[in-house]
């Protein structure tokens, strides 16, 4: 790691999102274990800034576990252990002395099941900024509005900001959760099967939203839905369970290539629906 990388971190990330060679997130020879269980095996890949990367694969292949490497959400599982190098903006995020809270502020996450807090829509979005010390009502109003606009839900909720975040539909809840993440101005948004609990129309809305957001954010999405990966992503990583039940990276390439001209036979089998 060079000093230059450290310096870029302290400057405005809007201008220097990516490290020098253009990648934003990087895995190098990464292994993840839960106790004795080898969940992710020997994965290496680089993810570019301001793009959408889809992680696909059959269920149980370690997609979500891999996603959770990037914001150290696996830390919450006591038996989890990580080997190898995980970099964000050129910084090894598993080295000692890393501020995990700061990391998660910059690498936000949206979950499979919409999980708005049991409080008002406004308070849901303002939650992050408030915790990070913003008290000024005017600034908060501004952040809430901007975030809800970015999450393409403003028009639907602007008249009921005081209502409970649980009172809106599932698709709206998920966009509210995205707004909640946007409100803390992350650089990366990790999405763990964000549409699996939603109906097709709500799914399309989220996908449109992702396309728009990708002009400014790096998005990594785990999905079991291949069409979704094909529709929204720039790059696609295909994961599979090996013989030892550990998840490993089979192929990583431009989405077009993966879906039209996969290099690996297994990828082709999966894409064409022969298994999974």
């Amino acid at each position: 790691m060079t000093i230059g990388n450290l310096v870029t971190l302290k400057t405005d990330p809007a201008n220097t999102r990516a490290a020098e060679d253009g990648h934003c997130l990087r895995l190098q020879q990464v292994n993840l274990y839960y106790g004795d269980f080898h969940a992710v095996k020997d994965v290496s890949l680089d993810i570019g800034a301001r793009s959408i990367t889809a992680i696909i694969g059959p269920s149980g292949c370690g997609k979500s576990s891999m996603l959770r490497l990037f914001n150290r959400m696996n830390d919450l599982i006591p038996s989890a252990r990580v080997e190898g190098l995980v970099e964000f903006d050129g910084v090894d995020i598993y080295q000692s002395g890393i501020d995990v809270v700061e990391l998660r502020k910059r690498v936000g996450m949206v979950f499979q099941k919409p999980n708005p807090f049991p409080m008002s829509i406004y308070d849901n979005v303002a939650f992050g900024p408030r915790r990070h010390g913003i008290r000024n009502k005017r600034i908060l109003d501004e952040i809430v509005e901007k975030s809800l606009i970015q999450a393409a839900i403003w028009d639907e909720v602007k008249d009921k900001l005081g209502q409970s975040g649980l009172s809106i539909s599932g698709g709206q809840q998920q966009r509210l959760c995205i707004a909640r993440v946007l409100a803390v101005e992350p650089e990366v948004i990790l999405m763990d099967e964000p549409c699996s609990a939603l109906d097709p129309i709500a799914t399309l809305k989220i996908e449109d939203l992702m396309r728009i957001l990708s002009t400014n954010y790096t998005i990594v999405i785990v999905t079991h839905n291949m069409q979704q990966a094909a529709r929204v992503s720039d790059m696609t990583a295909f994961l599979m369970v090996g013989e030892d039940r550990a998840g490993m990276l089979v192929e990583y390439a431009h989405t077009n290539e993966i879906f039209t001209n996969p290099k690996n036979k297994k990828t082709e089998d999966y894409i064409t629906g022969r298994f999974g």
Partner: protein
Amino acid sequence: MKASNAKRRYLTQRVAISVLAVSLALVVIPVIGIIIYMIANGYSSLSWEFLTASPSQAGKAGGILPAILGTVYLMLGTILFALPIGVMAGIYLSEYTRANWLTRLINMAIVNLAGVPSIVFGLFGLAVFVLGLNLGMSLLAASLTLAAQALAMTITTSREAIMAVPKEYREGSLAIGVSRWQTIRHVVLPQAAPGILTGAILAMSRAAGETAPIIVVGAAFLVGGLPGSPFDRFMALPYHLYTVSAHIPGMPSEIKWGVALVLIAMVLLFNILAGIVRIKTRKR
């Protein structure tokens, strides 16, 4: 033959279920009976003077204000110590420890301490607070004793209320760079608050009715005036009831019933309050 067999089976069923119904009646009817009887007998002694005056003629006349106040102070003192420690211990056990043999041991200790006889806590309080810390037979020592006893309850209810908060809420907060403590403070605790509150109210209600420990740590039957400081000796309703009913010959029976009625009203009021909080939360 077949028909009579079926008949017998249904007869057995009818008899058995009647026996069950009688069992339930044996549980319920005495409770209702006691409450009605208590109200009927104690009602006549409830007067403004009874509730607001000090006892006179060795408790045979006058009121029971010092005992009521003593009990209120004891409830407040108990919760003052037992709630913060209980909640923080509950947070510690649910959020800051990992499941291992030590946490299992601690959990086992807490569960079993809830079953330790109250008189044993009295002995503990006598040795530690009254004599060890030299607090004497005071309101403070009694509060601390009752708090030690209530701890098992406040810890258990807080921990359960905290653990009942879905992990999705914690993840949602942590995933936007909110620290663990802030997540607990702003997401977990507000969700767990009704459960913690229910436990606190029940602990107070129990402290109000607890008698054996305060006999050991020195409740008094009669003290001149109202308790002025935490270091004063004190009267308390349950101890007053014990003394007037078991130790003072010639005590007018209205006084006994009156004391019993006031005590049970206080205790049940808190129980009902806890029930209301619980029902309200369940609806939400």
